[in-house]
């Protein structure tokens, strides 16, 4: 990678929620700031800026990652998915989102986008995920409102539904 001038913006090309994007960012700009303040996708939330709380979790090439610990310039050529990709139409929630609503898996909703992105990746890669897998995955996220129990129940319900839909006769 060529050495870049720290004082000015440089282009970053990547795929964001299925669409090609060209943005401009200084070397030190965080991915979370690029998404929120340059591109205007504010669904990704920033809670701690040091990678502990998990609110800013997005998917980079399918893997959950902290947008607050990723520089915008690091995602050149990558495929980024944010919470906005989960259901383009709020009237039609995804399985996972609908399960969260049904099970009261959120209160203030600030940590929720990050949790959804982690669980979305988990359920895609491990459709057979059970309670302990889900808890293990959720342990990278902090939620101050719910006490977590309803989040686990929502994720379990979504996993169960997904299995039924994919193997309707199983």
């Amino acid at each position, binding site marked *: 990678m060529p050495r870049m001038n720290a004082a000015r913006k440089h282009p970053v090309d990547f795929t964001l929620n299925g669409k090609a994007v060209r943005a401009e960012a*200084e070397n*030190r*700009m965080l991915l979370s700031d690029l998404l*929120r303040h340059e591109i205007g*996708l*504010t*669904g*990704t*939330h*920033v*809670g*701690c*800026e*040091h990678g*502990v*709380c998990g*609110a800013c979790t997005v998917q980079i090439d399918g893997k959950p990652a902290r947008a607050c610990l990723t520089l915008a310039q690091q995602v050149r050529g990558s495929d980024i998915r*944010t*919470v*906005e990709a*989960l*259901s383009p139409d*709020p*009237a039609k*929630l995804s399985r996972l*989102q609908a399960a*969260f*609503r*049904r099970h*009261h898996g*959120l*209160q*203030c*909703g*600030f*940590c*929720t*986008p990050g949790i*959804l992105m982690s669980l979305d990746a988990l359920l895609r890669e491990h459709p057979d995920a059970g309670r302990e897998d889900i*808890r*293990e995955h*959720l*342990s*990278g*996220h*902090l*939620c*101050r*409102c*719910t*006490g*977590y*129990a*309803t*989040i*686990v129940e929502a994720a379990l319900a979504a996993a169960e539904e997904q299995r039924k839909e994919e193997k309707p006769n199983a």
Partner: protein
Amino acid sequence: MTRLETAGGLIGRTVERVEDAGLLTGRGRYIDDLPVRRDTAHLAILRSPHGHAEIRAIDTTAARALPGVVAVLTGEDVVRLTRSMTVGVKANVECWPIARDRVRYVGEPVALIVAENRYVAEDALDLIEVDYETLAAIVDPEKALAADAPVLHPSLGTNLINERNFRYGDPEAALATAAHRISIRIAYPRNSCTPIETYGVIAEYDAAEDAYDVTANFQGPFSIHAVISRALNVPGNRMRLRTPPDSGGSFGIKQGVFPYVILAAVAARVAGRPVKWIEDRLEHLTASVSATNRVTTLEAAVAADGRITALSWDQLEDCGAHLRAPEPATLYRMHGNMTGAYAIENVSIRNRVVLTNKTPTGLNRGFGGPQIYFALERLVNKIADKLGLDPLDVIRRNLVPADAFPYRTATGGLLDSGDYQTALDRACAEGGLEALQQRRDAARAEGRLYGIGYAAVVEPSVSNMGYITTVLTPEERAKAGPKNGAQAVATVAIDPLGSVTVKVASVPQGQGHRTVLAQVVAERLGLAMEAVRVNTELDTARDAWSIASGNYASRFAPAVAGAAALAADRIRARLAAIAAGQLNITADRVDFRAGKLFDRDNPDNAVSFGRVAAASHWAPGTLPEGTGQTIRETVFWTPDELQAPTAADGINSSLCHGFIFDFCGVEIDRTTGQVRIDRYVTMHDCGRILHPGMVDGQVRGGFAQAVGAALYEEYAYGGDGSFLTGTLADYLIPTVMETPEPLILHHETPSPFTPLGAKGVGEGNCMSTPVCIANAVADALGVEDIRLPLSPSRVSEWLYGEERPPTKPQDAAPVATGASGERMLTGSGSAEVTATRDSVWAMLLDPNTLKAIIPGAHEVRKVSNTHFRAEVTLGIGPVKGRYRADIRLSDMVAPEAVTLSGGTEGALGSGRGTGRVTLTETATGTRIDYRYEAAIGGKVASVGGRLLDGAARVVIGQFFQALARHAGGGAPPSAPAGLLQRLVALFRRRR
């Protein structure tokens, strides 16, 4: 589960939340998501790295010169445009949102930068030079009272800012004649419910109208609006305060954003542009509000059978460096229910409020409850121990009798309703207490450490806005005029097409108010929930509000939802009158269901809701004589029971009093000291339940935070006032792995004082759970002095006593220079060089050599032969910063030994230390031995605690390695990474 049934109604049903579709799809509108004016600039705040210091000078020249910086403000600039914030007690002390000539806590604002963007603003912070003279800091509330303690506010002359003594009944006689006097001493720690969204403010100043317009994720109480307006020196109608549609949690904490409302407003005024500020996590942990820490001694007069006849409270409340509104409210919020769930007729209370070099406190879920119930329920447990009784029997013997409600407590509270005995019995039976006791016995038989704890708690809700005046003497109150009540407000409006809008000033922080209000109003008007839309944004320039508005004291369900029901009922009565004319029946026969108004006796005789509602808009002339409009109805509701304090200091501090009975079983790992919650049962009586899913959500959420407070969380300070828990890796919040699922039970006794019979439920477990867990740990270990948090290291101390000194001989410690509790680093090492001792000695005294060998040095200036000044850039872990170092040489024995002592100061913190360097001639040259001791404070101490030892060792090692290289020895210059690794290896070997 006992629950009042609402036949076919919406209230009491766990409906899906109307908030969720937006929040789940990334469409929430939190403060940092809101659109701002294109010319909005960003605010960054320079904060004190010291717990206590005089500010000698602030040099902002370099910061002002940085391109992109719009304005720089110091404390004096803010003072010129504002007034001191109101202090809630009579005391000769000022309270500013930014330091003037002295800093009193780590994190206190010192200067403000307004710049084009946040990155540039934070760059500019590093360019401000502040010259501090550090003062002795005081962090322990008891030591702060000592005659020779450093005084924070010279104008006050003492750290004791308020003291009041109260007496109810005849506590002295009860104590004198009691069969037993049993007391307990408690030190409750500081903690915070730390919402995941931090503070945020967007402020604008209109110079043409001398008016401020501020949007902040403030949660109330809106009595604070008066404090803000006064501080900004404008009438309330020129201080427009708005809240965003969504909030990322608060738990009381976002009350504490208000000093930043003032700072951002002034910054916007000076900058001539709107200013936006979003707090970062380090700022939040360091400088947002937390619960108070409190030292309590509680004594009880106890009869032979365990009946408590008197309580004597001595409470020492630590509110931090300033008494900020609404403090000392934490100390007085529970004043009406200081006897908890018990019928105790004689009470004495000594309340003292002390200031220390810690962050000012404020609202935090449970607000005053955790502190008093920790003392009270530990004492009840101790009474059982001392008298050889079952703790449950002591609890039962003292509970307020079921036939005594409404029950007036000794201190003036009015417990509205309850049946504590039945709730407790049901909890024991349905929660499986007997099985749990067998489980404990079995575990103990195997030699395991297992204990059971109990807690009975009264959960107050809907605060009396007058309770805080109990801190004033009756004479002061008489002079100031009575304060009481708690205005709740709700507006129900119907538009020309018949759809309904509800507007409240409840400022929800994620609880789901919009859903519950839609349920309540839709049920009252016979509509589907979807026909009612609720708006909970608050704009003080346009909406109905009052000082009690906001989201605190668990007031939503009992007060706000009740006011909405009353507003809907008023409109309903008028709609019925109008419909009666149209249906040709009397109004009392009109019923509301499924969007229709109809004759109860002949449902076919019906008219649509929209048609009746439209009449007020389209044809007001057709309304029956004397029937008011149905366009908009605003109800202000304040309960009569919330009276001002009496002349005898009796105060009904809250309208509603829920009841909680918890019990739990914990097991302690004998090897690690870890506390594991094996089973937790929590029984709640929160009156009528409006939405069971949300009530259980409140219970689980409060419980999880209480588990954190009991086992993991503490805002920790060093003895010098340095803040030690500045990251979420240091301040440990429970994850899903640490949060057990409690069994939640309900027993409903509706409140007779609220429109819907509901009581608050949001805070109870923050009051009951920490002490319940502590009682279980006490039961498991047989330890009386239980302190929170119950971390493995603390529990291990009780299990094994204090850590023994190592058996292997250690290097003699260098002379100690740090204050007790300061974060100290020590180390030593040596390096071999080929140069002669004299030439090494000369190098150590030469600024050019020093510049070459001090890691990260930009400049080294020789002030005198024994005094050097240096500018260095150092990185510790992820935190890289520029520091100014001041180094003095002493105890010089040329060319053998010298002591270097000095300090560094920078945006990221400060350090000082001493090092003794000795030079010994060897066969091949010189051996350099060094030993150092350093103390570190400020930001690096807050965020890098666990990295510091290693990092300091590496940096100091780099210095001597570079010296060795310069003197012709050691490793040749090479790539930094390789060098670093070799250095680390080198110093590991030499330790």
